[in-house]
């Protein structure tokens, strides 16, 4: 059963194509991380999911409903964290809790107040005067109190220091797994994602480069470094590598092939090398390996 189904999404800003025929699903109970460089369409996707942008063609469904016409019942099942932890900053923590509680019959204020008790804020302090980290806790606490089935978190790590980021991730992971919540999350800080997500979706300009369980991705996507015996040697790795960086006699390349497959390929192409090494990657390394540095 899918919480989110997006089918054949195509969108343009003016004449600029953002993506064409993009399709993906998010299974219920999974935490999916959407990774991509700036301008690849992450925010566009989030906006379409929340019904704030009508795609040029295609559709996204959340719990079977088109996101352009979500009913209040379905919206009640979705928790939405806006990039930068935007909230009604003219309110204080008591006012905002009172405001939101009126919309959700299953409102559970306990986790909200638990988080608020950790913040060093005065009861009447406006949210606008709080630090970014404190605001993130307010936004998180409100989502936890709402108790939604699906959480859409847009760049949750923006502006947070490492401590708050870790607090946010640990809280979110524990909550999502304990309560069987579905989470769709984007972040610029990929090392955070590694601790949080089950599945990864990596976007590049106009397309999806990978969508699979993060463990599977990390086990199948590899980085190899070789040193050529002759720097002048012509090297053709197009048959196996998705990205190649060559500096003099050193070649760094990324591939879905195994070590044996790579060695066989190099032999078949007559590429001589003096050293061969598979390098262990973090998710961030793998992301850059797949999408290139620039």
């Amino acid at each position, binding site marked *: 059963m899918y919480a989110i189904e997006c089918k054949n999404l195509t969108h343009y800003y003016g004449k600029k194509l953002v993506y064409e025929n993009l399709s993906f699903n998010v299974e219920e109970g999974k935490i999916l991380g959407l990774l991509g460089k700036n301008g690849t369409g992450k925010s566009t996707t989030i906006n379409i999911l929340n019904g704030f942008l*009508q795609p040029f063609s295609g559709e996204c469904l959340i719990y079977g409903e088109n996101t352009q016409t979500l009913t209040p019942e379905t919206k009640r099942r979705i928790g939405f964290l806006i990039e930068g932890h935007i909230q*009604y900053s003219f309110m204080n923590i008591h006012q905002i809790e009172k405001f939101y509680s*009126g919309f959700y019959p299953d409102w559970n204020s306990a986790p909200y107040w638990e988080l608020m008790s950790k913040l060093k804020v005065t009861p009447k302090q406006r949210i606008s005067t709080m630090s970014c980290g404190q605001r993130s806790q307010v936004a998180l606490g409100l989502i936890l109190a709402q108790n939604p089935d699906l959480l859409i978190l847009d760049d949750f790590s923006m502006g947070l220091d490492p401590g708050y980021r870790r607090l946010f991730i640990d809280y979110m992971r524990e909550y999502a797994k304990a309560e069987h919540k579905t989470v769709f999350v984007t972040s610029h800080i990929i090392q955070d994602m590694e601790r949080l997500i089950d599945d990864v979706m990596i976007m590049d300009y106009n397309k999806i480069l990978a969508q699979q369980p993060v463990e599977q991705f990390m086990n199948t996507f590899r980085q190899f470094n070789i040193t050529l015996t002759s720097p002048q040697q012509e090297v053709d790795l197009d048959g196996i590598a998705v990205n190649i960086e060559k500096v003099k006699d050193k070649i760094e390349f990324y591939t879905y092939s195994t070590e044996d497959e790579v060695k066989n390929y190099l032999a078949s192409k007559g590429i001589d090398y003096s050293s061969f090494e598979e390098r262990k990657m973090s998710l961030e390394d793998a992301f850059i390996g797949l999408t290139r540095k620039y």
Partner: protein
Amino acid sequence: MLKSILYKEWIKIRLVVWIALGLGLLALINIFLKVRHDILFVDAANYWYSFLFRGYTYFSILKFLPFVIGLAVAIAQYFPETVNKRLKLTFHLPVSENGILIKMHAFGAVILLALFLVLLGLFTAGSAIFFPSNIIRASLLTILPWFLGGMATYFLVALILLEPMWIFRGLYTAVAAGFVTIFFTSASIGAFSPVLLPLTLITLVLSCVVLFSGYRFRKGEM
């Protein structure tokens, strides 16, 4: 849910509403202290004569107050929704998008109307102390367009603030400025009487235009 919506809107505008009420009261006190002073030094019959036949208005200080109040209430209510596109939070609430915008807008309009009715009521009561009914009636017919202009300003500024594209904001502002000016065009006492009904009807129509900006925001115009 309605209670929550009204609660948030009240938090946004309450300071402006109290300040506006204070300013309105100060303006009325100023008007009637001056009227009392003038009637003491010039006899009442002459004072009334200047009003009826020489176009002297004792309440000109009120002229732009409804405009300023309408503008301030609209900014207080809608500017916080536009900062960081916070309107997304509002439209994500589990109610119909048009429904919540109508409720927010109706609340702002009702508060503004109540404020204007209080000021108009106090103006009428104060005038009744010093003037006969025909002068009070002529005075009310003169200031009603100003208050109607205050309502129109509120509706149009809401349309402008929630519009997602700057170019459209500019366009709306130009049209709004031209239209609102009509309410404050200098004219002799009671001159607006024949057009008061059409202006009221147009203002009522304007009360709905904010829905168009809300629709454009939801469709992702940028």
